[in-house]
Every structure is written in C-alpha cells, then in structure tokens.
C-alpha cells in the first residue's frame, strides 16, 4: 500500500510528508530547548548573590567547536546539493566530512567534560580552599595532589578567567580535608545546567552522526532504487542537523561567553 506524497510534494502545501514531519519535530525541539533556556534564565536571575561562576569554560575550544559545526552546516548543504545534481560520489565526500566534523566536535566536548570532571574544589578543615586538577598518578591514600591554587575566599573561585597562569602542584594530606568535590553537575547550578544542556545537545549531535552514517553507508542503497526519495532523506536529515547547529549557536554565547 502506498502512502501519498512520501516522495513528491503535495501541490497545495508544497512539501512532502517527511519534510513537514521534520519541521513539526523541530518545532517541538524549539520548545524543548526553549524550556531549558528559560530555566537557565530563571535560575540565573534568581541565583543567590555570589554563586554564579563566570569564565569557567574554555572559550578557545568552544570557538573551535562553533567553527566546526558551522563548517559542517556547509558540508551538509553541499551533500544535499550533490544529490540534487545526481552526484553520489560528491554526496559521499561531503557527508563524510560532516561525519568527521561531528565526531571531532564530540571528541572536543568529551575532552571538556573530562577537564571539568577532574577539576576539584577542596575545603580544608582549617577553612582554606584549594582548587585544581587532580593529578591522579601522584595522589595516594595519604595525600591528594592537585595542579591548582589556593584561594582565600570561595568567591574567588567564581571567576575562572584570571587564574590559570598561577597554577602549581599542591600536595594536601587527606587528613586535613573536610570536603572534596569535583566539578560534576551537582557542584553548582551553573555546572548542572551546563552539563544538562550541552549533554542533551551532544545527544542530538550523536543522533545526527548516526543518521548521516546510515545515509552514507547502508542507507545509500536507496539511491540506486529511488534517487529522489534518497535526496529527500538527505534533505530532512540536513534540516535536523542545521537545527542542532543553531542550538549550539545559542548555547555557546550563553554558557561560554556570559
């Protein structure tokens, strides 16, 4: 049984089914991320004074990731154009590039997560506070080795922009430590929303990569049966990818730059 307008556009609406379906899906995605962005604003505006950190994220890496996604937007477009021009080889090339860019993006994101995950705040029993990266191999059952710095006041932790240069190796006996917590989501509200939003976005990137990998590999068999149908699939996947890019364009300034 054949469903109408799976491949060709319906004359009066001007779209084929999957395209409309994708637009609707993206509308719901706007609401999903819209909900999270609203939550961000709500939580940030309502945050108790001196609790919202700034400059904790790595701006050069974030910029690089932004450029990667921007470049991948171009390659997805070119891949679709190649299908329109009936050039499967060009499609494979550009989709391959998209896949590569997407994977590098995820790799960098993974590195950033790791960087935060191994970053600790230590509160000592005498009230002093240390922050820095755990030096795993050197830490023992008796002492923790951090590459970091001492701060007088917890508020100093909040500004991450000026501290990096002064970091050195600190060895702190475990017996002196009152509380030790890494920069995981539970550490504070900023990290919580950072992990949640970028994590959800990362899952979307991963989803896009899987779809493109499918279209690049086994899915491309459809090309030989019905190139137009295949082109539609590439277009719809491209729409999704552009949306994922767009979300990042908002995430980057909101989380990294403000």
């Amino acid at each position: 049984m054949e469903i109408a307008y799976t491949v060709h556009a319906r004359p009066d609406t001007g779209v084929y089914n999957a395209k409309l379906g994708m637009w609707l899906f993206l509308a719901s995605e706007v609401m999903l991320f819209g909900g999270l962005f609203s939550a961000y604003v709500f939580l940030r505006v309502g945050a108790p004074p001196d609790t919202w950190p700034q400059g904790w994220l790595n701006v050069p890496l974030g910029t690089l990731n932004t450029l990667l996604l921007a470049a991948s937007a171009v390659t997805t477009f070119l891949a679709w154009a190649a299908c329109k021009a009936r050039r499967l080889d060009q499609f494979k090339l550009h989709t391959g590039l998209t896949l590569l860019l997407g994977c590098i993006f995820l790799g960098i994101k993974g590195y950033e997560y790791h960087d935060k995950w191994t970053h600790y705040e230590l509160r000592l029993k005498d009230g002093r506070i240390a922050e820095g990266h755990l030096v795993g191999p050197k830490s023992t059952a008796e002492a923790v080795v951090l590459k970091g710095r001492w701060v007088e006041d917890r508020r100093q932790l909040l500004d991450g922009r000026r501290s990096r240069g002064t970091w050195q190796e600190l060895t702190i006996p475990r017996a002196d430590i009152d509380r030790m917590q890494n920069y995981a989501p539970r550490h504070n509200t900023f990290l919580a929303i950072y992990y949640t939003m970028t994590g959800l976005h990362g899952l979307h990137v991963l989803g896009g990569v899987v779809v493109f990998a499918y279209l690049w590999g086994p899915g491309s068999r459809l090309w030989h049966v019905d190139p137009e149908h295949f082109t539609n699939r590439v277009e719809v996947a491209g729409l999704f990818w552009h949306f994922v890019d767009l979300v990042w364009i908002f995430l980057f300034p909101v989380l990294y730059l403000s």
Partner: protein
Amino acid sequence: MVQATTRSIEFPAREFHGPAHATGFWRTYVFSTDHKVIGIQYGLTALCFLLLGFFLILAMRWQIAHPGEPIPLVGWFLEKVLGSPASRGIMSPDLYNMFGAMHGTIMVFLAIVPLAVGAFGNYLVPLMIGANDMAFPRLNMISYQLYFLGGVVMLASFLIPGGAAQAGWTSYSPLATVIPTDGQTFWLIGMVLLITSSLLGSINIITTIVQLRAPGLTWMRLPFFVWAQLAASFLLLLAFPPLEAAGIMQLMDKVAGTSFFLPTGLAVGGATAQISGGGSPLLWQHLFWFLAHPEVYVLILPAMGIVAEVLANNIRKPLWGYRTMVYAVLTLSFLSFIVWAHHMYLTGMGTRISTFFQTTTIIISIPSVILLTCLLMSLWGGSIRIHTPMLFALAFLPMFGIGGLTGLPLGFAASDIQLHDTYYVIGHFHYVVAPGTIFALFAGIYHWFPKLTGRRMNEFWGRVHFWCSFLFMNAVFLPMFAQGFAGMLRRMADGGLSYSARISPGVEGTLSDFILGLNNYILWAAVGLGLAQLPFIINLFWSIWRGERVQGDNPWQATTLEWQTPTPPPHGNFLRLPQVYRGPYEYGRLDEDGDYLPQDRPPVAHTR
C-alpha cells in the same frame, strides 16, 4: 445547487492496491502498521488503564471514608502484592500517596489522552479525511509501543522497594525529589517514554491531516472532529517538550544530585540537605503547568470533536456555527499556552503576574463558551434521534458546562485563595473530565462501534449504562463542591478527619459532621459508578461477536467519509480514492433521496 468549489489543483492519481494481503498473526495484530489496528490497540490498552485508575481511587475512597480500617475484599491482595505499605490490608499514608499520584498520572497520561487521541484520532482521522493510512505508519506503531512501554514502567514502579511515586501527578519539587525511594525516578522515565510517544503521535496526526486530505476536502470541509484532533495534536507537540525538559532536570536532581528545583538551605527530615542549592521550586511549577494547562485542553478538545460528530448525525441538520467553532478551537488552543500560572496564584509568584494570568484565564473562557453555545444551539429545531450515543453526547453538554463554570471562581486569585487545593478543585476538573470527556468517549465508542465490527451494541444495556453512570457520576462529584467550600483539603490520607469536629469538637472552623459524612456517601456512589460500568464491559465484548448486525455500511445515515467505506474498513480503507464535493454536515436536505448527502457523493446535475 451543490457546487464543488475545489481550487484547481492537479492531484496526481493514486493507485489502489487491493485490500489486505495475507500477513501472519504478529504482523496483523501486534506489530501492525495499520492505523486502525493501532487505534484499537490504543483503545483497549487505554480502557484497561482507565479501569485500573478507577480501582486505585476506589481503594482511596475507602480510606477517605473509613480511615485506618482494612480495605474490604482486596485488602489482603494489596498486602500480598505491595507488602508493608498495605500491611493488614490497611492503606498507609504512603500507599495513599502512591495511589493518588498514580491515579492522576494513569488517568491523564495513560487513559484519557491515549483514548481520545491515540485511539479515536488514529482510527478516525485517516478515514475521515479519505486517506489510506497515516502519513508515517511505522512511526505510528512505534508510538504505540513507546506508550505501552511507558505504561509498563509506571506499573512496574508499584513493585519496586518503596513503591511508586508519591508526590501527586503534579510531582512538585522538592517533595518529589527528596522522598527517599526510586518511585519518582520510575515516574520520570515513564513520562519521558510517554512524552516521546505522544510527540511522534502528534507529528503523525498533523502531517496526515495537512498532507493526506482527499481531493476536494478543503479546510472548511473538514469534520469538526478532525479540527479538534489537529488542535489537540498541536498542543501535545508544543506543550509537552518543556515538561520533558523539566523531567530531565528533575531526573538530574534525583540521580545526579543537582539542585535545579532545590532551594538553598533545604532541610529534609530535620537535617540540612547535602546539596549545592540555588535552585527554584517555582521553576518546576512553571514548567509543569506550561504543559499541564494545555494538556487539559488535550483532554477536552477531542471529546468536543466526538460530541460534535455524534450530535450533528443525530439532529439531522448542520452544526450551528461550524466556522465559529473552528475559529474558537484555534483561539482556545493558542490562548491555552498563556494561562498556566492560574494554577499558581498561591505560590507567592507576585500579584502582577497573577493579574496577567487572571486576565488571560477569563479571556480563554470566551471560546469555551462559544463552543458550548454552538453545540447547544445546534439542537434547536433538529429532528433529534435519541439512542445511547446521543444520550452520552447530550449529557456531555451540561456536565462540561458545570465543569467550565466552576472554573471561573478558580480563575480569580481572590476567590481561589479560599478554594485552592480543596475538594472544590477536584470537583471542578472532574466535572470536565469525567462526566465530560469520558461521557464523550462513551458516546464515541457506541457511535463508531458498528463501523469497527459491523454490529451494534445492545441498546437496552447501553441505556442502563448511561442512566446509571449519569446518576452516580453526579452523586460522586457534586458533594465535592460543598466539601471544598467548607475548606476540606485534597490529598489528605485521612479524608479530613484530623481537621474535623469529630476530633476537635467545639473548635472554630473545623469540618462539620455533615461535610465529613459526605465521604461515606461518595464512597458508595463511587461503588455504584463502578458497578454501572459492568453492563458496558459485557455489552462491549458480547456485541463484538453477538451483537445485532447492522444493515449496510452506513447504519447511522452519516455524511462523513468514514462511513463511506466497507465495514470494517480493509487495509487501505477505501475501495477507490474518495473525491469530496461538500462540507461535512449536509443533513436535513429534502431535495435528495434520504435526508443527507455524503461528502463524497457526486453532485447530481439536476435543473433547479
């Protein structure tokens, strides 16, 4: 003259591939991609959940009426299955909270919406618009499976240590987060599955309506039911994602230790909680009600659609103000996104915000009243046929009226201070959903049953079902208004006993014996309501195999396309692609043979 006013659009000819090719049992009934099978799957599953939700509340009503007494008949069983929360067959406060939370969740997300949208929408929308299936049949199957899985997760949560979620269907944080069991985690995972399911379902329904309308079926020729489904699907599509976002955040609070909804300095069980704090309980409420207010329109709009169809068919004349109704539905859907905080007047969000939401709340009652008025006015001058589906549809009107009118005092912050969180609110929304939506769903089941089976449900037992349900529904919910006015709070595991004159005689403002005594009376009315469903259940299954056969494919002499198919419709629905010539309610026409003109009957070129 009946003039087809199709715009001149070339629709490519569609081939028709003959009906049902032989497929195995599993592909035909379980993993089917046929919208009709999926619709029936949704329907049967949702009816089971409806019954389960009812049993949960019946047990709770026992506890409310007889706090601390073992539940008769089923107490031992509850103890066996659920263990200590039901020890000695007595409902503990924990169990009461569990049942309460799950009653609401099951009724809203697993029973009514899946019935109204999943079952009726799936089965009828493609038929009514002359399509051979949904736009994305495989997605359709997946959305049913996700719904089923969501239901399984919710049910499974009863059996885990500590039991199911206990923080109400609204799951307000911090309460929901700090209850030290995994019930809430299950609830959240179940909700994510259900949200994904309804997301896929709504995309499917919207795409189908936009893309697969038969040639000639212009927007203003759509049956009102289809408009209602379209609007409800848009609400599901756009309102659910923020709850999904909120659900993810609450899940993070629960499993990753974040503090999205947990304020600084939160104390749990007398000790300061080991959390970073800085979160906002209000945020959860905003995100929750941003979904949940539109959600109540998802509960009511498909019901209105069903009532409109049944009514038009049985008054034998066009609906009064069809266009007005369409515009009212669209306005209503839009407005329903900006009234959510009327559930939060008492949270301390500020009077200026309250003022805004009072205004929008009162504005939104205008399109609701328009819809009801149009349906009522349609009755005027009709030649009304009375039978079971029509009785249910007619009863919907005053019941929805009571529900809507009692909403108005809640919409003003000043009066809501007295009424908020009392049984008045319970009365209000149950009038809209129970004798409202559920009656409409019954009307729909009786009305479309002949299309599904080629048989009619028994009329006598149908009427018994109707009159008993009507009586007991009102007996259950009417007293709740009085209890609410008297200040009886909802969600109390002892049914208000601790605040009653029985416990503290002579104290000003306690609940009187009369108000408290209503609890016992409501219990027996609820038992009656349950018994009144027996004729329905038996009638439903008996009629599938033994019901009286109907003559022809269109026993109700209906105009809309779903009746212009073989009975039951084969895979692919129509024998040939229908061409539509006119609006949906061409009844009462005396210039034709019979008093109605089906949408797809070619106009006769007769002289006039």
